[in-house]
C-alpha cells in the first residue's frame, strides 16, 4: 500500500489529550471525533487537512491516555498514515489493532516540514520526501504485528482464534 500526501509536522511528546481532547470523549462516533482532531495542538488542522495527508512527528507520538478515539479521530479526519521517530506504546498498539498505518522512521521525521509532500510505501518501508528528493528506510514491523496488519486488525485475528464461539 502506498500513501502520498502533504505533511503536517509536529514535535515530540504529542499526547492523546491534544490529539482528541477529553471534553469530546462523550461519544465514540468517528465523524464527531474527527471534527476535533488535533484541536488542542493545532486548532486549524481540521480545516487544512486533505484526504491522504500524513502526520509527521518526533519522538513519543501518542503518549498519555489509552483512548483509541485518538487514532480513530485522525484517521477519520483524512490522515492516511503517521510517521514518527517513535510512538508511545498504547498508541502504537491501538494503531496496529485498528488498522491506522504507522511508520517508525526517525530520519524522515527529522527532515520533513509541514507542507512537504511525502510518499510512504508500506510494502518495502520506503519513506520518500518528494519535496526534498530524499528517501529513507522505515523500521519493519515484527512478524506477529505484520500478521495482525495483514489480517485487517486484531479482531479479525481473534475471530480466527476463538472460532465458532466468536460467531
Amino acid at each position, binding site marked *: 500500500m502506498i500513501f502520498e500526501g502533504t505533511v503536517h509536522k509536529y514535535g515530540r511528546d504529542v499526547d492523546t*489529550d491534544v490529539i482528541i481532547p477529553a471534553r469530546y*470523549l462523550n461519544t465514540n462516533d468517528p465523524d464527531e471525533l474527527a471534527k476535533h482532531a488535533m484541536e488542542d495542538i493545532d486548532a486549524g488542522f481540521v480545516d487544512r487537512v486533505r484526504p491522504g495527508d500524513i502526520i509527521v512527528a518526533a519522538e513519543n507520538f501518542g503518549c498519555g491516555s489509552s483512548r483509541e478515539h485518538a487514532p480513530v479521530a485522525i484517521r477519520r479526519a483524512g490522515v492516511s498514515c503517521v510517521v514518527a521517530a517513535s510512538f508511545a506504546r498504547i498508541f502504537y498498539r491501538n494503531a496496529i489493532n485498528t488498522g491506522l498505518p504507522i511508520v517508525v522512521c526517525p530520519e524522515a521525521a527529522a527532515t520533513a516540514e509541514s507542507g512537504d509532500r511525502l510518499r510512504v510505501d508500506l510494502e518495502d518501508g520506503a519513506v520518500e520526501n518528494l519535496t526534498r528528493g530524499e528517501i529513507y528506510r522505515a523500521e519493519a514491523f515484527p512478524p506477529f504485528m505484520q500478521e495482525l496488519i495483514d489480517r485487517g486488525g486484531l479482531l479479525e485475528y481473534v*475471530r480466527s482464534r476463538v472460532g465458532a464461539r466468536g460467531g
Partner: protein
Amino acid sequence: MGSTITEKILARAAGREQVRAGDIVEARVDLALANDITAPLGIAEFERAGFTEVFDPARIALVPDHFTPNKDIKAATQAKKVREFAWKYGIVNYFEVGRVGIEHVLLPDAGMVAPGDVVIGADSHTCTYGAVAAFSTGVGSTDFAAAMAWGHVWLRVPETIKLVYSGVPSPWVTGKDLMLHTIGLIGVDGALYQAMEFNGEAIDGLSMEERFTMCNMAIEAGGKSGIVGYDEKTARYLESRPDGSRARTAGQVFVGDPDAEYARVLEIDAAAVQPTVSKPHLPSNTAAAADLAGIAIDQVVIGSCTNGRLHDLRQAAGVLEGKKVHPQVRCIILPGTQDVCLAAIADGTMQTLIEAGCAFSTPTCGACLGGHMGVLAEGERAVATTNRNFVGRMGHTGAEVYLASPYVAAASAVAGHIATPEQVGATKEGLR
C-alpha cells in the same frame, strides 16, 4: 540466565517455561477492564466483529467512573451502553453510581487483583496494580474487545528498568514525590515499552497506598507497567480484602532471579528527594516545590486514581487541619471510592477537609481529565495530585496544571500559591 518478576508472570500466563524480553506472547488474562469512555468503543468493536459470548463474565470489570454521574446527555448515552452491555452479558463486576469508584482504586480494594495476575485495562493507568506484584498494563478499546471474546492478549514481553531507591525519604516526601522525581530524571519516554521495577529501602518503607501511586504513574514515563515485589505489606493489604475475593483466594507470588537481565539499573538517593512538583506541560518538567512559591493558583485537586486513597486524604487533612483554604482558591477532593468516603467520615478526615473549605466530590475521574467537576478556565492555574499536566488536560488550553503530592497540594490550597507543608506551618504528628 534468570528471569525478572515480569518475565515470570508473563511466562506463566503464556503457558511457557520461560520468556525473554522482546518475545511476543499470547497471555491469558485474569482481569480485563474498561470505563465509560473506553468501553463503548470496545463494545461497538465487539459487536461489529460478531462476537456473541464473553470468555468469562466474572473476569471482566466495567467501571463507569470518568463522566459519571452523567455530565451531559452524550455521556449519559455512553454510560447507558455500558450498563446495557453489562446486563446482557451478565458482567457481575459492573459498578453503578453509588457503588462505583475510580477504577484503579476500586478494583484492587475490592480484591479483584492477586499477585502474579495479568490484568489489562482500557485505561492507561491500569499499570497501578503492579503494587500487588501483578503484571498490569493499559491497552485500547479494541484490545479490550478482543480480550472479552478471547480471554487472552498479545503482549511483547517488556525489558525491565530496575529502579533502586536507597535511604529514607524526608518527612514530607511521599511515593508521589519519588515518582515525579524519577520521571524528571528519565523523561516522559524514559521507560518506553519497559516494565519499571521499584526496589530498595525506600520502597520497602512505603505504604501500599504510595506504592500504588508510584506504579500508577509508570505510564507517565512511557512504561508498560510498574511493579513492586511482594512483601509483608503486600500480604497484609491482600489479607484485608473482602472474604472470598481473588486477592484472598488466588494468586501466585513470583520473585525475580538475582541473575535476571535488566535493560538498565538506576539508583536514586531517596533521602535527597525534596517535595517535588511537575510544572506545565509535562510530568517530566520537575522542580522542588520550595522553589515555586511565587506561583499563585486558582484551584487545587486532591484525589484521583493516583492519590485518591484514604491515606492520601489523611495526608491532606493533616496539613489542612485547623487551617482554611485560601479565599481565592477552590480545593476539590476526588475520593477514590465510596469506601474511602466512609472511612474518611469515620476517622474525621472528611470533616477536617470540609471545615477547611474543601469541596468533597463523589468518586469520579472528572476534573483530572477536564471532563467535569472542576474544569479550568483560560489563564487559570491548578495544583493537582493527579497524573498529567498536558496542554488542555484539565480544561482550557490556556490553563496550567502543576502535579504534586497531597501534602504539597494541601499546603498550596492554604497558601494560595505553591507551597510546602512547612511553609504553611504544618507539623508532622503521627502522619504516615
